[in-house]
């Protein structure tokens, strides 16, 4: 059932993400930058909030007038700031919703990824807490409505001795005590949100917390434009003798408030409880059956730290050498963080298929799908190829190539060490190698596409050797909806190869003779990283 919902949602995302990617390019695609945009909106809210606070009167008597002054007299700076503050906050709700749905749709929330998902839950509460206290401070008709409905909701819980809603229904009992508390909360809750935002990405390597500059600039410009077009305004001074029964609601922050009228306050709490429980349990509903975590084989690890650099989930730490080999450090993998993506296998300089050893070993490997198996499958798949223009496909399990028959299927295309591509071409196992990964802005393993591109471009260790003819390597990044695009790209690649002058490649002596004795640390040139 959950799987069906996820599948449908994934279909939806893949469907709308293509036009977005086409218009914005993979780099600027806002759908691939949701987390970063969330941070960006947070900073806009922070800066505009500090600006507004300078004008804001924190006393309940003068609060409304001070906000009116901001919006009317000083509209060209403070008023714009007020609009930025409101709209960036609204956009955070939009962002958090789409981000949550997207992580769910792409199944990036189960298994060891539970942590980011789980910490997302308090962020939802904190974001709403920030927004609702913010609307309170304006002390207009909407604030009156928010104050009454919020306190009625709180009164439903057995926390307060007296109904706090009584504070807001008759002029006689109104105290500014609660108002001062709200001013404090509106600063404290967002600060706490920022703290949880930091915790949220602790287990993510190189998290995207800043959108690309171009996207940031356009976002800010558009926000300013919208602020001028539709300035954020108050809705009349609080009048406690009149019921605030007609208000222009912020439907991002207050969608549940009208529901208190139809479901009752208890009903809204039940909904919130059920929603939180569901979000909280989702990473284990059902638990992800995952391949075993990567394992370090110290005999083949020289402590170069490439795996640790490339791991998308902070799963590898470099620690002091423990086995006496003459290297200062060694890799250490944490099973509770590893998603078994295999990217580290592709990074390790010891992952060289040219070795003749029966037991092909490398510095870090996936126990359930090791480098040796990968080489075997590559050779097998190559054997099945025939004809003049043989193209061997390495396909990621999560992208458009996952259904390609005869391909070598991997958890991530970045699991292929560049030397394996060299191996295929120089041993004449195929005339060309196609790499079919996820859509560019939706890499399941976050960094697999970037690393693959950089390795082929010889911009990142381990390089694809200079001797490997790049025209015999093709990449296609496509979502699972775009299987036809993958087939077409492979067919076009076959055509391109056919047009190439026939070039018989031979593996150089050095590489084929490379055989590492047990306990002999790998030499980095063998990894195919030397130009």
């Amino acid at each position: 059932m959950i799987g069906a919902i996820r599948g449908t949602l994934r279909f939806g995302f893949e469907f709308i993400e293509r036009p977005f990617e086409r218009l914005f390019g993979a780099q600027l695609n806002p759908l691939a930058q949701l987390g970063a945009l969330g941070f960006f909106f947070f900073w806009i809210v922070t800066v505009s909030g500090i600006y507004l606070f300078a004008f804001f009167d924190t006393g309940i008597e003068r609060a409304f007038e001070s906000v009116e002054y901001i919006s009317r007299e000083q509209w060209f700076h403070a008023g714009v700031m007020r609009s930025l503050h409101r709209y960036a906050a609204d956009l955070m709700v939009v962002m958090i919703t789409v981000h949550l749905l997207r992580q769910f749709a792409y199944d990036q929330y189960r298994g060891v990824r539970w942590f980011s998902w789980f910490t997302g839950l308090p962020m939802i509460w904190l974001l709403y807490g920030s927004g609702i206290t913010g609307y309170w401070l304006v002390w207009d008709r909407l604030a009156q409505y928010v104050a009454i409905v919020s306190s009625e909701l709180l009164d439903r819980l057995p926390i307060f001795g007296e109904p706090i809603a009584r504070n807001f229904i008759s002029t006689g009992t109104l105290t500014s005590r609660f108002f001062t508390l709200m001013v404090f909360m509106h600063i404290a809750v967002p600060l706490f949100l920022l703290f949880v935002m930091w915790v949220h990405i602790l287990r993510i390597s190189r998290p995207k917390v800043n959108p690309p500059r171009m996207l940031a600039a356009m976002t800010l410009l558009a926000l300013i434009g919208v602020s001028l077009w539709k300035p954020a305004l108050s809705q009349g001074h609080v009048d406690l003798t009149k019921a605030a029964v007609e208000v222009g609601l912020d439907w991002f922050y207050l969608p549940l408030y009208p529901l208190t009228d139809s479901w009752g306050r208890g009903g809204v709490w039940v909904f919130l409880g059920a929603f939180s429980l569901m979000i909280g349990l989702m990473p284990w509903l059902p638990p992800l059956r995952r391949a075993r975590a990567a394992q370090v084989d110290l005999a083949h690890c020289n402590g170069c730290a490439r795996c640790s650099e490339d791991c998308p989930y902070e799963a590898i730490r470099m620690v002091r050498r423990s086995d006496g080999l003459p290297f200062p450090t060694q890799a250490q993998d944490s099973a509770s963080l590893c998603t078994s993506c295999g990217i580290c296998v592709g990074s390790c300089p010891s992952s060289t298929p040219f070795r003749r050893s029966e037991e092909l070993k490398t510095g870090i490997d996936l126990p359930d799908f090791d480098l040796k198996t990968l080489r075997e499958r590559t050779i097998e798949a190559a054997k099945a190829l025939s004809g003049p223009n043989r193209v061997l496909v390495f396909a990621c399990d999560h992208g458009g190539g996952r259904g390609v028959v005869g391909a070598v299927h991997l958890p991530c295309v970045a699991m292929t060490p560049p030397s394996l591509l060299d191996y295929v071409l120089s041993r004449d196992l195929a005339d060309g190698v196609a790499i079919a990964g996820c859509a560019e802005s939706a890499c399941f393993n976050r960094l697999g596409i970037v690393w693959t591109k950089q390795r082929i471009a010889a911009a990142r260790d381990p390089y694809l050797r200079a001797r490997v003819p790049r025209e015999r390597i093709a990449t296609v990044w496509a979502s699972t909806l775009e299987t036809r695009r993958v087939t077409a790209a492979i067919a076009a690649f076959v055509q391109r190869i056919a047009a190439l002058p026939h070039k018989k490649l031979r593996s150089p002596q050095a590489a084929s003779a490379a055989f590492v004795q047990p306990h002999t640390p790998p030499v980095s040139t063998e990894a195919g990283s030397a130009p």
Partner: protein
Amino acid sequence: MSYLRMAGQFVVIAALFAAVAAFSDAPVYRQTPRGSAIVMLTFVHSADRKADCRRLTPEEIQKLPPNMRRVTECPRGRRPIYVELDLGGRRVFQASLAPAGIAGDGPSKVYERFVVPAGNHDIAVRMRDTPRTEGFDHERRGTVTLSPDQMFVIDFRPENGDFVFR
């Protein structure tokens, strides 16, 4: 990147943001029907505890340690408060309000909202906060004219022991 493409990107972003801004204070939500007013019955009041006190018998007083001897014993818990509200001669609310607190020693609370058409209304509110089972300890009635969207509050002031219409 071509300028045309950049313009396209900007238009998409700006349109999205404009839609978000539009929903930040619209559509308007109306909680009660137009032309209606709200009568709110709310107070926080502790039932009289003294009324429940009991004179101890001389034997019972004898049994107490000398420094703790007293003539009466008062239960810690309070009794519930009985309250009823009539609007236009119709009983719209009646309840026995239990005291708050685990030991039942806190005040009783009520917070009830009644949506009525604007206009004239006869209001009668009565309350019992002593052990009596008949009649009332506090009562107030009156006719009020409610304007549309007015919030009319019926409160209780324990200091002077009467209901307040506001």
